[in-house]
């Protein structure tokens, strides 16, 4: 048994030493989700907007693929083979004057949008934007206004996603940020709001 574990340890070291190590800077998904949640709550909780829906407690994250006991050994080996300078803390910067401005703009629009989100005239689309769903219950003369609010809100959201990516010097993250927001808008939406599921069908929370 001991011989087996020694062989395994040698194998790990040899593997680590001979492997061509490539360092990827991964999208900080958890940080993005946390940042998105803060911003979304801030917007949805603007005065006049309804109280947010309390989501169920998120399940504890679990590691996959590699058993937890093996992880320290691999990390120990890699720490000594790979320069630590390349390691990057998974963090996301969500503070910049432009981001703050656009958040203020979205917060001030929130009370105007809320009645139409409540009555299902508009809903949270699966792509991180808002979309007109059913204007039937909106008086005819107000429908252009709803479309204008939707266009302006989407222009702000586009700016928000782009500016967060830019604040992190990673313009290529824009789509991932938008996808994260798309999920969080729906999770944080109050009960009764409409949203699009993954297939594009409208559902009510």
């Amino acid at each position: 048994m001991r011989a087996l574990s020694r062989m395994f340890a040698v194998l790990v070291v040899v593997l680590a030493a001979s492997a061509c190590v490539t360092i990827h800077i991964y999208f900080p998904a958890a940080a993005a989700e946390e940042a998105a949640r803060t911003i979304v709550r801030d917007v949805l909780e603007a005065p006049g907007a309804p109280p947010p829906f309390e989501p169920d407690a998120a399940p504890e994250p679990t590691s996959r693929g590699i058993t937890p006991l093996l992880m320290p050994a691999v990390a120990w080996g890699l720490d000594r083979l790979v320069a630590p300078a390349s390691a990057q803390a998974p963090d996301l910067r969500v503070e910049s004057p432009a981001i703050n401005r656009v958040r203020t703009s979205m917060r001030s629009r929130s009370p105007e949008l809320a009645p139409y989100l409540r009555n299902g005239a508009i809903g949270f689309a699966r792509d991180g934007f808002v979309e007109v769903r059913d204007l039937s219950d909106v008086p005819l003369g107000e429908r252009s206004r709803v479309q204008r609010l939707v266009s302006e809100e989407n222009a702000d959201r586009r700016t928000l996603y782009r500016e967060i990516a830019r604040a992190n010097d990673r313009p290529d993250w824009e789509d991932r940020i938008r996808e994260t927001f798309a999920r969080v808008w729906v999770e944080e939406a109050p009960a009764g709001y409409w949203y699009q599921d993954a297939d594009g069908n409208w559902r009510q929370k």
Partner: protein
Amino acid sequence: MKRGAGRRGLRALVLASLPLFATVPAGAETGLRLELDIGSLVHEAFDARGLRAHLSWVGPEPRFEVQADRLHLPEPVGRVEALHLRCPRAEVTARRLACPDARLTARGDGWRLDAAALDFDWDREAGLVRFSVPWPGLFRGRGRVSGLAGAPGLRVDLDLAGLDLPMLLGSGLVPLELPVAVQAGTAGVAGRIDTRGRVPAAQLDLSVSGLDFSDPAGLHAAEGLSASGRVAHGPAGYEVQARFTEGAAFFDPWFLDLAEAGPVSVSISSLQTVPGVADGVGWSAASGEMTLGGHTRLQGTGLQHRGDRLEQGEIEWQTGRLDLAGGLLAEPMLAGTVLGRSRFEGETHGRLSVSQGRVRAVEASWQGLGLNDDLGRFALRDSAGRIAWSDDALAPESHLTVAAGEVLGLPAGPFQMHFQLEPRGLRLLEPLFVPVLDGGAGADHFHLRVGPEGPEVEFEGGIRALSLERLTEALGWPRFTGRLAGIIPRVFYDVDGLRVDGLLLVQVFDGEIVLSGLRIRNLFGIAPELEVSAEVRRLELDLLTSALDVGRVEGRLSGRVEDLLLVDWVPQRMRLSLATPEEDPGRRRISQRAVENLTAVGGGVQGRLAATFLRVFDAFAYRRLGFNCELEGDVCLVSGVVDHPDGTFTLVEGGGLPQIEVIGHNRRVDWPELVRRLDAVREGPPPVVQ
């Protein structure tokens, strides 16, 4: 209805037995009674089941009745049940059978006739049936239907009013599949439908009032709509003319209240449905025209529409009232863009060509054009011009003139511009100069190309000396005297905005500020950003402090501002370093008021002289002064000409007697608070030292 049915006669297949009962009644009168139980009768044009006929010729005129349990007629009538035709007074000759006062009872899908009056005349030799029906009140309508049915087909003359549209459209009698549900409205129809020709023809005068309709998502809807018009159908398709006079409609994203916008007229020529390739059924029209409120006209020719886009066509527009048409038509389309909060005025006309679903060429002219941004970012007054663009060739020269304009509060113009629009770009044909105040900005060469990597800009131009006095006045800043000028050899545009190569020279306060590394991003966006670095050369402090009205300081000031970032014109980041230069010091004095104001502004700054001592002197000599600020966000990390080990720093170092020294204690300064205090000092009365 299938044509050619009558002349060939009733090629009927009698499926059931034909029991025939002929009786001669007993009594004074003699006559004939005939009862036919035909059962089923199948014909090209109809299929009757449970068919019975009853003929009674007792008096001078025969009477007859025909009944059918079920009858199938061509669409749109379709299935008819419990048909009962009574003819109390038939006129029978060898050639014709007529019944001027027949009564018809029947019911079908969504309709019912209850002893409705019917006048018909069957010319058996000619194979023609003439009929005339006072409208039996179906769908709450009134009026008359008459016509002629025979071998070549059917001609129907309609003169109906007050038809309830939801009932009529719900009955299935109208062979239309509408994309909207009609909730209310009445209609009148007068005209003729004729199926006797090679192509069925129709010409109907239609009127609707109180029309409410909506599609499922409410994106196409109307309320209280009134319209009248004519629909004609011929070999080339439908000819449609309609005039909408009352009510309101929403056709995403446009809303039109006809009471405010005025009537809308529509005419379409040779309208036909055409099968689409991939997007289902589309339509085509030889021409179409829409006029709005008598001031705006849209015309199209050779139109082909498939799915949700115009595939082909030439569109022309003309409006004499952009103030009205802009708000109604342009504003909803521009929502969320830079022009989304703009008001327009003036006149415009032009045309665009669409081919294979893409715009291929545009020509537009305008005059008296005005544009005002509600948020005050820009404005344009009295512009005229003509532009031309083509997607596959160099278009003819474009030009425009602007009488006056405004950008971020700065008045500009008049100017004119000659340029050429390329398929993916714009080239200036003559130097452009835009007067701004007493100077202006100009471009000798400008060429913009939009490629797959983004826009590329070639630019040579500059800023002709601009009076700072008028500039600061226009921007509402403290009034400075001086001039701004510069040469801009190149301009770059990328994802980080517009980068201006070259140097801008600001001659101010008897010194110079040289601006470089200018970058502008989202100029009209939610948070405009401007980045610039500056070198400050020997500004005369006397003039500077006089302009700011903060007390008098004599001497010179030099230094640098690096990486200044303004967001929405508020500094967010910079490395500022200003100090009196070592060389050529000249006279250096600071007034008592300036010291006090510096104290008031600094907060953590203290004068080292006793207040009572200060009162004796109006001004003090100083050896040097300086101020450094590393700004990041709202926090400015301050230092002076000398940094002391205890964390304090000297802002003003005295020289001579009495010696004055201004020491700062607080290195971390709240920048917005500093600006507020500076404003308070400038706007408040001069402080009095007690």
